[in-house]
């Protein structure tokens, strides 16, 4: 393998950021230009949203359950086991629901997008689309971005709800807590800022998942090996970006909406 000089390496990095930014910008700008691919968007929404439902439900449920189990251990020491509902609801709604759903969807869909578009790239289908007078960013990227942002929002809500149910099952069946006590504690301690934080994040995460997946797919080089490389890179980059952006969005919302 050829070794790159630090300057070339830096140049490649800057070029990648520039190309990613341009693709992201075009994916948004295409929303205001014709043609709009509504059927493609709905198909992607079905693939991304409905298709991801089982993993989101499973992840959410067991995250809520394990949160209750671990939290109970600590809360019991302070005699505050009744606050388990609050612990699960705040953790799920503010942080774990959006982030874990984002990570799961990134693993499933960033890779899917990168491999699908990557295969199209290496078999010249992307060039064929351009040669046939169709803009691939309009036909392929924007529908995926819109569908992912839209569906991740609702998947996060489902994940939160299922996570709370998972926590409830542990609290009720294993810790012997009263159902009313759990749900009222979980519900009453949630404030507007918590819900806002939990619902703003999926918008950012959805955008990252789709644009990163499409970017790596459309930049694929080098046959089937290249497709595999793009797929791996897309999942890694999307997951890391989700965690980084999560920190900054949390900080930003804390500044704008302090308790």
């Amino acid at each position: 393998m050829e070794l790159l000089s630090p300057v070339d390496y830096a140049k490649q990095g800057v070029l990648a950021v520039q190309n990613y930014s341009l693709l992201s910008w075009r994916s948004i700008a295409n929303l205001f230009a014709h043609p709009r691919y509504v059927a493609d968007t709905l198909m992607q929404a079905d693939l991304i949203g409905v298709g991801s439902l089982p993993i989101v439900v499973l992840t959410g449920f067991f995250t809520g359950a394990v949160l209750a189990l671990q939290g109970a251990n600590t809360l019991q020491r302070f005699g505050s086991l009744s606050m388990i509902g609050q612990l699960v609801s705040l953790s799920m709604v503010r942080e774990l629901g959006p982030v874990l759903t984002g990570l799961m969807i990134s693993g499933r869909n960033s890779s899917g997008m990168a491999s699908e578009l990557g295969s199209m790239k290496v078999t010249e289908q992307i060039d064929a689309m351009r040669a046939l007078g169709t803009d691939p960013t309009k036909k392929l990227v924007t529908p995926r971005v819109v569908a992912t942002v839209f569906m991740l929002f609702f998947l996060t809500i489902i994940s939160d709800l299922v996570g709370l149910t998972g926590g409830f099952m542990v609290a009720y069946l294993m810790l012997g807590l009263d159902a009313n006590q759990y749900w009222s504690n979980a519900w009453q301690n949630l404030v507007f800022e918590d819900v806002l934080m939990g619902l703003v994040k999926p918008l950012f995460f959805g955008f990252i998942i789709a644009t990163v997946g499409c970017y790596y797919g459309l930049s694929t080089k080098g046959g089937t090996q290249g497709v595999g490389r793009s797929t791996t890179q897309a999942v890694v980059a999307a997951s890391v970006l989700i965690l980084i952006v999560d920190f900054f969005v949390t900080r930003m919302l804390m500044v704008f909406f302090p308790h």
Partner: protein
Amino acid sequence: MAELLINQERGGTPTETQHTAVVFDDVSIEFDGNPVLDGVSFEVARGETKAVFGVAGVGKSTILKLGLGLIKPDRGKIYVLGYDVMQMEEEELFELRRKVGMVFQESALFDSLTVKENVAFRLIEEGDVSEEEIDRRVREALRFVELEHTVGMFPAELSGGMRRRVAIARAIITQPEVLFYDSPTGGLDPITSTTIVELLVKQRDVYKTTALLVTHRLQDAFTMATHYFDAKANQMRPLAAHSTRDVHTSFLLLKDGKVIFDGSGQELSHNQDEYIKEYIS
């Protein structure tokens, strides 16, 4: 000559070019520091088919991609149907590409779409064509390549030769003014290759379409230069020994990124250059 025909000031705006459909003027491009095309210049007249030859990696397919604006050259000017391809943004190029058909080397059919959806892709994208009209034109294009029965099949269910023919049907469905063929017979058996060449001759003689044919099979281009399409008999026939019929087919030979020959088949056969003699032998 190009300067007389084309208004260079108008960038992406089409200008009338009565006689010339494609102009390459001193075009150069390199990939990763390796020069691929170096000062390539040629013209393709309207209705003419120009066959581009050269050894693998000499830049034949690059010429087609440059002509469609899929990649940009480092230097030179390219005009297709009067459009200054170099000056056009990607958005503007889509207008030009709707007038140019391209058959890719490996067909590049959309593997998740049926043959009908592949062939109709351009019409569906245009948006204002009725379902009945789409169906009629798809069947007409598939009839041209004698594959009407494959309409509901997926590309994976077709043989290599059938895929090329579907790719030709997809390229011609809107009857483009210019067609770019990238090795349409590459990797195919001689019988299927002849079928494909017959389709190219049919397209040339029946619809008078301008074409750039990239190939490494010299015999295909010589077949095109020595045959015509008999529309009444619906088959390709050889030209008579002393026929004066002009089949509008010329040859372009590339070597080390440069044009070393541009002329008729007869001129090519009588050329005394050692490399050319060896290449065509």
